């Protein structure tokens, strides 16, 4: 990443100095300097209004108690945070969120294997496979969740019908059994994410120079060795990108769990994610200050994990 930026940085002053007369018609260097600011400024305005201001507002709200309609705000110091850290639900929500994220991350190596197979030389119907894997990403998660809910149904679901056919005597109620419920939702989340992963990785694969494989073949490296020593290392920028996105997505888990594990499900309190906890506090319990405090905790956790990932990437990500 930094190398690319540096190369661009060096490229900018060169037109002005190398051939001044030839380039003048396209605009003076000063106008080149003003336009980017204008374009970026507009974007930054949107980002500031719709991203940074809500974060600031949320931070302020997290130190306040309001009435049910957000009115009459009173500063209460760290009361919301104290209450949050005493809530036994918080620890469980963190464990659940991390577990979900870890299972979702398993989708990244799985996607690497799938996309490498799709991009195998000489494979027919590549476009079809790509479409098949990408389709789930296009479908509405809430609608797909309903279908998975039926698949998981303890009495009539397809999964248990198959298991019963295989003479499993008492197949579990997937979405109503502690831990199993969360794992079932995670598997659904993983399935949803694979399409996006495969598209990103496929384009990453295509950018790997063919000569490297040819040279490796001449040196006698087999397919699997090529995969291990050429494909994977050169895919690391894409893998790193997916790892970051998956982690952030995992920490923001809400819709899948909300759709598949409804209120009244006996395991619902034990399967809450951090965002589910936030929703509960802010929108059901009308405790906006408490909800805002959870949002800050989520923000802090995502920030810390992302920073760690960026520091760690230097050890394993190869930029060509």
């Amino acid at each position, binding site marked *: 990443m930094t190398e690319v930026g540096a190369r661009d940085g060096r490229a900018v002053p060169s037109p002005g100095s190398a051939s001044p007369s030839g380039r003048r018609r396209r605009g003076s260097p000063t106008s080149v300097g003003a336009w980017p600011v204008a374009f970026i400024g507009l974007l930054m305005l949107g980002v500031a209004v719709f991203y940074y201001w809500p974060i600031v507002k949320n931070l302020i709200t997290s130190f306040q108690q309001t009435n049910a309609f957000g009115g009459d705000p009173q500063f209460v110091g760290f009361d919301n945070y104290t209450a949050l850290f005493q809530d036994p639900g918080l620890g469980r929500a963190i464990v659940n969120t991390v577990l979900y994220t870890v299972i979702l991350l398993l989708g990244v190596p799985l996607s690497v294997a799938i996309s490498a197979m799709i991009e195998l030389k000489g494979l027919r119907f590549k476009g079809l496979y790509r479409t098949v894997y990408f389709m789930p990403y296009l479908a509405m998660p809430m609608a797909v969740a309903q279908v998975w809910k039926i698949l998981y149904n303890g009495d*009539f679901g397809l999964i248990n019908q198959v298991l019963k056919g295989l003479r499993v005597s008492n197949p579990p109620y997937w979405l109503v059994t502690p831990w199993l419920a969360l794992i079932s939702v995670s598997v659904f989340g993983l399935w949803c994410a694979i399409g996006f992963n495969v598209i990103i990785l496929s384009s990453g694969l295509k950018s790997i120079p063919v000569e490297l494989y040819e040279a490796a073949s001449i040196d006698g490296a087999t397919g699997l060795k090529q995969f291990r020593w050429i494909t994977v290392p050169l895919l690391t920028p894409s893998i790193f990108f997916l790892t970051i996105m998956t982690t952030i997505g995992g920490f923001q888990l809400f819709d899948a769990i909300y759709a598949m594990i409804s*209120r009244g*499900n*006996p395991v619902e*309190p034990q399967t809450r994610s951090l965002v589910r906890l936030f929703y509960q506090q802010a929108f059901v319990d009308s405790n906006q200050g408490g909800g805002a405090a959870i949002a800050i905790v989520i923000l802090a956790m995502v920030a810390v994990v992302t920073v760690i990932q960026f520091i760690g990437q230097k050890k394993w990500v190869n930029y060509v």
Partner: protein
Amino acid sequence: MKRRSFLTGAAALAAMAVAGCGSKESSSSSAPATIDPDTTANLTLAYWDKNQTGTVTANIKSFNEKYPKVKVTTNLTAYADYWTKLKTQAQGNEMPDVLWMNGPHIQLYASNGMLASLDGLTSQGIGWGNYPKALVDLYSFDGTHFGIPKDFDTIGVFYNKDIFKAAGVAEPKAGWTWDDFHQKAKAISDWGKSKGVWGCAAAFNSDAQSTYYNTIPQADGFVIKDGKSGYDDPKTIAGLQCWTDWIKDGSVAPSKVATSTPPDQMFENGKCAMFWGGDWMASQLATDLKGKEETFQVVELPKGAKQATVIHGLGWSVAEKSANKAAALALAAHMGSEAAQTMEAKNGTAIPAFNGTQDAWVKTYPQWDMQLFVDAASDYAVPYPVSKNTAVWADKEPDYLTPAFSGTTPVPTAAKNLADFMNAALAKEK
């Protein structure tokens, strides 16, 4: 009568002026008595049940015959998102002018000054004596009316005659007791075990209104009284314990079954013989079981220590900060009128609240004994338990009670913990 109602209206207005509604509002609400037929206004009307769109539209049409220049835009939001959306709208002073309200939320909105007083509507022909008293009280706060009763719901037991016949169990009859219910459900569950058929299914883990909100008063207990939780009362605990007992011996389908397949679907698909549900289920059952109506019937809830059902109903409310409050009040009054509620009856989705219009509703389902839901309302119904901010504690009930119903936590322990939580939440309301 006319003069008296005018006086009440004037008194209410005076009270509002004293309460200091702000000069702008009081000028628009200074004439809620009637509005000029030529009034021009744009109103929004919010509701959540798409099955009732026909009724809402028809009633707006009849409203426009009186006030042709008032344009009403309807705003349908599914129930799951209705309250989240309304709260956000309230926060931004953008509430719909006229809206559906329910018991758990009325006091929250009324006490925060979000709803307009409807006391003045008596001069527009609204007589509070025309509606069941339990509902008028439900929509009153601090002696002021904030909602006109729209409809009401009571609970009964729907049953599948074919399953009773196949299992060789006599059909339930009015006047039956918990013991009768238990014995029938047990007999059918024992018979149907190999076929996956349960004696009874009920949404006790997600729908208190159809389940333990009835057995609690039947056991002579209560959920809330004088701002205190009733969950630590031994009689209330008895009203919860019955479910645990019924589930334990398999008479009622356990929560993992009822969560995987909603009880109404189990019932429609012949997976349970009995189903505890409200009158609002009738329209769904009539559609889904078309052609097979004769094999189904409904009976009143079994008696515990006494006979009881919980009663709840929706109300029409008006936003306090409506830009066209006079027109909004006129629309609400129209929606609460006998003519509008007769229209509701014909639609058949819910029992209209206006006394005397219920017969038309009962006749919508000639094959079933729907009269029992209407009789229940006047004979033995108890009000739906609410407080100023009901959702805060009501939403937590499943967290405490589901483990109790499954037998993992003893019912008295779970009930006591819920009572403590609820009392703490109630203390914060003041």
